[in-house]
């Protein structure tokens, strides 16, 4: 999946991935896609929760080389 922006949260722990995701989305246009890369195990449930609450759609989740990759569509 093509992303308009990539956010590297490898090595970061709660609350940073969610806080930085929000900050990055704020700088993007509606409909653009953000790729977030996390190694925090909590992200597996944190990102869907963030998506549900903020309305930024979680299009895809996958694993790549030990990292969780999320694709979020800016509301």
């Amino acid at each position, binding site marked *: 999946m093509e992303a308009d922006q990539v956010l590297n949260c490898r*090595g*970061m*722990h*709660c*609350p*940073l991935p*969610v*806080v930085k*995701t*929000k*900050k990055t989305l704020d700088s993007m246009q509606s409909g653009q896609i953000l790729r977030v890369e996390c190694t925090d195990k909590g992200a597996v449930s944190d990102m869907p*929760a*963030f998506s*549900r*609450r*903020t*309305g930024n759609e979680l299009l895809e989740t996958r694993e790549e080389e030990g990292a969780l990759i999320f694709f979020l569509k800016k509301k």
Partner: protein
Amino acid sequence: MAEEKRKRIAIIASKGTLDMAYPPLVLASTAAAMDVEAAIFFTFYGMDIINKHKYKSLKVAPIGNPAMPSPVPMPNIIGMLPGMTAIGTAMMKSMIKGINWPTIPELVETCIEAEVKMLACTPTMEMTGVKKEDLVDNVIVAGAAEYLDFALDANISLFV
């Protein structure tokens, strides 16, 4: 999904130790990132979390805290020896750094940037001689009524 009326979280931070400073700041910054309106009311020792002269050097004491991890097993009473608080604090700080976790000043900054309402309790300031200029910028000096006015419409209310 964000609704018309935003959800709210109201937190009272009453403790000024390194370990107890994290939960209010982590929850409030995450809430703000999730489009939730967040406020923290800093009272009693919790005021140290937003005190510019103190928030870099919050401490945690091994004494009276049997859950504190120790490299070697030892009776809790050893924690009363001079220097044990400094050792315990240094250990916890290195654990925090080890997982690349933000420091307290960094988290305070994150909360302010995310527009978390930071309320400083006026009687605590009077009692301890803390002035508004001793506190980080963007703090609102307030009393219980202002906090309650916010918290009465909150979905989550916590005392830490």
